[in-house]
C-alpha cells in the first residue's frame, strides 16, 4: 500500500481519465479497483489504461480516498479523518459526491463503495424527504396528489 515500505518496489500503473489527463498510480493503490485489476489480468498492464467514465477531478478524489483508506486500516484517527472529509464533501458539494460514488461504482472499489454508501446513509438518517431533497438538490417530481398520498400513508415515519 502507499504508506508501506515496499512502495519502492511497487509498480506504477498509468491511467487516463475521460478528459485526457494521465495519472501514474502505484499498483497497490490501483488494484483496489476490481475494474483495473481485471483489465490488468487481461494484459493491458503495459499500456495506458483508459477510464472513459471518470473525469480527472473525480479520479483524483478516488485515488486520494484509496490511499487514505489503505492508511486508515487499524488507525482510528485516520478513519475519523477520512470520514469527516467524506461528510464535508457531502455537505459542501453533494454533486461531486454523487460523481464520486458513480466513479467508485464504475471502478468497482468495494471498500470505498461501502464507506461512501455508509456515510451517505448516516448523513441522511432520520431526515425528512424535504430536507433530503434540499441537501442533495433533488427535484421533487411527484404530483401534489401523489405526494399527499405518500405522506398520509407514512405519516408515522415523518413525525
Amino acid at each position, binding site marked *: 500500500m502507499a504508506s508501506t515500505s515496499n512502495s519502492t518496489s511497487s509498480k506504477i500503473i498509468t491511467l487516463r481519465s475521460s478528459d485526457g489527463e494521465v495519472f501514474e498510480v502505484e499498483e497497490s493503490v490501483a488494484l483496489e479497483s476490481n475494474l483495473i485489476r481485471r483489465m490488468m489480468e487481461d494484459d493491458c498492464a503495459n499500456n495506458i489504461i483508459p477510464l472513459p467514465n471518470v473525469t480527472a477531478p473525480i479520479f483524483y478524489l478516488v485515488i486520494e480516498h484509496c490511499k487514505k483508506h489503505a492508511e486508515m486500516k487499524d488507525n482510528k484517527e485516520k478513519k475519523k479523518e477520512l470520514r469527516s472529509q467524506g461528510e464535508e464533501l457531502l455537505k459542501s458539494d453533494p454533486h461531486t459526491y454523487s460523481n464520486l460514488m458513480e466513479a467508485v461504482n464504475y471502478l468497482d472499489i468495494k471498500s470505498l463503495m461501502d464507506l461512501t454508501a455508509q456515510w451517505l446513509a448516516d448523513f441522511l438518517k432520520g431526515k425528512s424527504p424535504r430536507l433530503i431533497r*434540499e441537501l*442533495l*438538490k*433533488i*427535484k*421533487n417530481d*411527484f404530483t401534489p396528489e401523489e405526494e399527499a398520498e405518500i405522506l398520509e400513508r407514512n405519516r408515522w415515519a415523518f413525525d
Partner: protein
Amino acid sequence: MSDENLTTCDGNWSELPPEILEQIFRLLTFPDTRRFSAVCSQWRSILKSEPSAFGFGSIPIPWLMVGDEAIGSGLPKRARRIGGRIRRFFNPVERRCYDIEAAEFARSVCHAAVRDWLLLSVCREGKEESWEVLFLNPFTKERFNLPGAHSPFDLGVCSGVPTCTDCVVLLLTKGVAQLQTTLLKVHPQENQDPVATYTHPTTFELDVLDAVYCGGLFYVYGMSWMGRVLSFDPNTGSLQHLINMFSALSQPLSINLVESLGNVLVITRGDSGGGWCRIYRLDLSAKAFTTASVELEGQLLLVGAGTSTAIPAASGSPDSTIYFAKCGTFEGGMCKFRNGCKNNISALSPLDGGLYGLPGKSVTPWPKSLSDDSLFDDNLERLHYIRVPRVRAWADASGEWYATGGVEGVWIQPPLF
C-alpha cells in the same frame, strides 16, 4: 439555496445507477426507507420494487402496539386509557416507538391482529354497553365493519386477513360453565353477519387464554384447574376436547399458542428459578403434545395472546429468539434459546431495555421481577389460575375512557408501501 442550483445539479442523485441506490437503501432503517421513498419517484420505484430487501431483513419484525396503562385509586388492576385517537407502536429493531392516529382507536379494545390488520371493538360514545366491531388497518386506514358481531367478546382469532375471500373469524366469549363461540365469514363488500353463534356447555369454568388458527381448525387454550386444548371446527361448529395439559403444579405464568410452519406450538413461561420457558408441539393425530421442548427450526416467535406470529429468523442468527408481549400475568420480555440446549432457557431478559409503561416518549424497562403482587388478581392463589379480565369499557366522571380485557400487547406487521 437558489432555484438555479436546484436545476443545474438536478439529475445526479435521482438518476444514479440503481445498484448504487440499492446499496445505500440497504443500510437504512425501516422508517428511513419510508422517508426516502417520498424523496423522488426514482427512489420510490426502487424501494417499492423490492420492499423486502430494504429496511432490515426479508420479513420485517412485527411491531408491538402497547396499551396506555392507567394506574390510580379506584381503577381496577390492568386498566388502560382508551379515550385517545393515538396508539403507540414499538419497533423492537430500532427500539423506538411510533404514534399512529386513527379515529377508530378512540374507545377501542383490540382482540386480535392478523398481519397489518387489527380486530377492534369500539365502544360507542356515551353508551358503555354498545359496541361496534371492525377490522382496521391502522397504516392505510382501511376498515371493514362487522355489523353482526356482538361485543364484548374476549378473544378473536382470524384464519387470514379480512381482505381475502375466505377469511373466517372466531369470537370467543367465556362464561361460567360455558364457552360461546361466534363464527363470522368476512367478505368485505358483502354480508358480514355472523354465520353462526354456538354455545358450548362445559363442566368447568374455562378461562380462555389464547387461540390460534392452523390448517382449517381453531385451537383454543383454556385454563381451569388444569390446562385444556380444545379444537373448534368452523365447518361443523363443534368444539372438541383434545388434550389436558399442565397441571397447576407446573406453574406456568403464561401460556400461548403459536402457529409455526404448520404446527401448533404451546409456549409456557414461569418465573421460578430465574425464569423459564418451554415450548411444546401439539401432536394433533395422537392427541398429545411433545413432552420435550422443541426446536424452533429457524423461526422467530413473537408471542402475545391472539396476535402471535412466527417469521423466519434472520439468517446466521445463532440463537432462536422469542419475543413476548404482555400476556397472561407475565409482563413481557425476550427469551433466547441456545442451540442444543433444548429444555432450558439461557436468559430471560427484558426486551432490549423494555417498553411497557411509556409516559411521553421515554421507554421504561419491563419489570424484571415478578414479585409484584399487584400483577395477580385478588383471592386467587398465585400461579394456580391465570385470570384474564373480561372486556369492559367505561368513562369516569371527567369523561376519561378506560378499559380492561382484550389483548394488551398486540404484534402487528409494520406498514408496507
